[in-house]
């Protein structure tokens, strides 16, 4: 008995954070800075900042397959290989799909990275605030449930996280595109500047093109170095020049002396205590030894990625919560969303043959949403934004098909055509029937059941894509771009790696899982602040919103804890 008590005491913290990616890193930072002893649990291995970015300084010729995948890698990564993110350049950051299978009722591309930092190491870094247009839209058009917050509730927290993370960009004073606390923007190249000027003139600033707002530092910030313009971010940045758990939140949490980080800790269940009606801790599987261990805390933050978190909640059953923790509403696992993209237009810019660029900018331009805004009414609801950019390659117009030889080599070694493209990122609606649930017919490497995913885009998304394609072409043509071609390469849910929903926030415990503080309606000391909490997707890249919601929830949780309310 004594031994058990001692073990329990040793395994007891003030707070447990499940997952060390973008939102988990923030939770660890905020909670430790507020004085809580925090256990940060990460299912994968540790990756130490800089030291473990093993490919970051490699030259192109130091990659045996020059970035491409071997047949062996394709065999062990049948999902990760479906699209471009999984390459030789950072292959160790992506999961072996055979270890962690899932059931695709319909195709869903699930990109995962099991390691400290999670996808904060590989993310696209585009960082945009949501606006009241987004927060009010569910209530206005009746899709999904109303967001329990409005812009004024989250605005100070956007300020807070932007100041710490370091987001570069321009303030634009454009409707429904809130400005923020930005480091100087990166520079547009001469083609982009020209396109911007012509689009904004044509639409009288009814449409604007701004520099991408990105979590890359354009000046030194918070002890981190500025961007060196190598465009190799997804390998990990040796200069700490983009926001990741490793570069930013983890060092802050460690500095408090209040953090215990435990890698190889796959959280399998949140333990519910029916006496207190709260969670008393978590049960983990040591992912190296398969040992099962329990940890205890007053509060639990769930930040295991959208579907990782929802799996954990669904897998945490008890007589009081037979369908998953805090799932009295039955909404847990439902309303899965992702952005749809891979649709737009591109063409050639003429008149800039005497201009070139220096350095590689890991960023592009952005056109914020203008559809279904104000008096604009389309045959679909919601809208899209564009990401794009111009660049000059070695390709020249007069090259014959499958050309070869010395002249060909010399020609393509010189700067050739300028091309400019715009690709839409569209909002998808929260459909109740787009859902995940636990499939007990399969087991993963650690003996857990797996997730079944049943999700598809529908008519509203299909209609929006026609605009995404045609508007892009129209704007490029308006801007003088030649030989404009549209494309729609199709988009499967999961591909944008912006999966959201499945544990949504809401005002009503009957129709939502979390309240306006990301607190479970039914289990007051459990907070879920990753993408699973989102009642709608908007069309902006979502990670900045997870950061802000996490910091806000941490502030609330600690206040409540101090008041003795949880």
């Amino acid at each position, binding site marked *: 008995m004594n031994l058990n008590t001692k073990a329990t005491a040793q395994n007891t913290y003030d707070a447990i954070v499940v997952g060390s990616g973008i939102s988990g890193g923030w939770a660890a930072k905020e909670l430790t800075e507020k004085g809580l002893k925090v256990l940060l649990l990460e299912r994968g291995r540790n990756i130490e900042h800089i030291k473990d970015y093993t490919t970051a300084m490699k030259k192109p010729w130091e990659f045996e397959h020059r970035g491409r995948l071997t047949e062996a890698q394709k065999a062990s990564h049948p999902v990760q290989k479906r699209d471009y993110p999984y390459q030789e350049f950072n292959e160790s950051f992506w999961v072996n799909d055979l270890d962690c299978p899932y059931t695709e009722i319909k*195709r869903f591309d699930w990109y995962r990275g099991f390691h400290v930092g999670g996808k904060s190491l590989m993310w696209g870094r585009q960082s945009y605030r949501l606006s009241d247009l987004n927060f009010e839209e569910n209530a206005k058009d009746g899709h999904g449930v109303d967001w329990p917050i409005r812009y004024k509730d989250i605005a100070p927290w956007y300020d807070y996280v932007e100041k710490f993370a370091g987001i570069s960009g321009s303030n634009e004073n454009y409707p429904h595109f809130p400005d923020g606390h930005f480091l100087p923007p990166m520079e547009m190249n001469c083609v982009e500047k020209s396109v911007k000027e012509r689009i904004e003139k044509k639409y009288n600033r009814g449409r604007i093109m701004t520099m991408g707002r990105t979590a890359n530092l354009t000046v030194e910030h918070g002890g981190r170095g500025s961007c060196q313009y190598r465009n190799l971010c997804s390998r990990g940045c040796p200069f700490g020049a983009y926001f990741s758990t490793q570069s930013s939140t983890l060092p802050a949490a460690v500095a408090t002396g209040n953090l215990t980080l435990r890698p190889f800790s796959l959280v399998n269940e949140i333990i519910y205590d029916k006496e207190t009606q709260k969670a008393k801790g978590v049960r983990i599987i040591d992912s190296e030894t398969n040992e099962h261990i329990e940890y205890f805390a007053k509060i639990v933050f769930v930040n295991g990625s959208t579907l990782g978190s929802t799996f954990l909640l669904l897998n945490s059953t008890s007589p009081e919560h037979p369908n998953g923790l805090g799932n009295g509403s039955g909404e847990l696992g439902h309303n899965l969303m992702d952005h749809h993209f891979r649709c737009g237009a591109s063409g050639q810019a003429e008149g800039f043959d005497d201009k070139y660029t*220096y350095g590689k900018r890991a960023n592009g331009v952005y056109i914020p949403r203008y559809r279904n805004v104000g008096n604009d009414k389309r045959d679909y609801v919601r809208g899209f934004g564009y990401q794009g950019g111009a660049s000059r390659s070695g390709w020249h117009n007069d090259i014959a098909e*499958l050309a070869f030889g010395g002249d060909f080599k010399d020609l393509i070694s010189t700067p050739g055509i300028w091309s400019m493209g715009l690709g839409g990122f569209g909002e998808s609606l929260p459909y109740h029937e787009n859902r995940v649930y636990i499939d007990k017919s399969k087991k993963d490497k650690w003996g857990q059941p797996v997730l079944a995913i049943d999700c598809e885009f529908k008519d509203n998304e299909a209609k929006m894509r026609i605009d995404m394609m045609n508007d892009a072409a129209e704007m490029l043509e308006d801007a003088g771009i030649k030989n404009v071609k549209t494309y729609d390469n199709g988009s499967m849910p999961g591909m944008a790696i912006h999966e959201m929903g499945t544990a949504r926030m809401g005002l009503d415990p009957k129709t939502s899982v979390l309240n306006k503080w990301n607190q479970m309606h039914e289990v007051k000391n459990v907070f879920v602040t990753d993408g699973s909490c989102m009642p709608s997707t908007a069309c902006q890249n979502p990670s900045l919103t997870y950061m802000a919601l996490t910091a806000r929830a941490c502030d609330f949780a600690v206040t409540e804890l101090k008041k003795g309310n949880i």
Partner: protein
Amino acid sequence: MDRREAVKSVAFLIGGALSATTIATLFDSCNEPGKNSENLFTSDQEKLISEIADIIIPTTAKSPGAKAANVGPFISMMIKECYPEDAQKAFVKGLENIETRSKKDFGKSFLEISVKEREQLITKVRDETVAAQKVESDANEKAMKLEMDIERNKPEKERANPTAVKDPQKTTPQFFAIARDLTMLGYFTSEVGATQAYEYVQIPGRYDGCVDLKPGQRVWA
């Protein structure tokens, strides 16, 4: 504005420029995985690969060629490790074909004919490849149009989801297209190609979006 002619534009933002053949070869999940056989090529074939690569990217006054960048062994390794079985077979067959034709046209092995003769032979193979790919892509396009017509005539409920990614159309792996792809990849990412044909700056340190093009400016590696 009718913009139904959607073009295959893979990943504009990543700056990748893969040919249709490469995309079909690398991403087609229906293919049997390649077997990494040490003995896939004879030693003469390995030499042949190096020589063909050096015809595709030869030394010029401006920069060294594929041989100087050791592209031949790179291609052999890539075919063994990164290509499905049907592409491996097509590649070996393509090498055999080059050798047979060299003997027929010039009475000697490809390894023994002059650079001019090699260029002639490779030009023929290239032209045939372009023609074969055209026939195939026309057929594929026709099949796709037919499929779309059938789709349109289905009741709405049975139609495929219009937002879905379509399976890539099956294309026959073409020896020359693969050889050229790998020669270009191997060369321009080699130290020789990246620093002498292209210009390589490991740490640019800044971004300048509008610089005057210098005479003799090369593409950034």
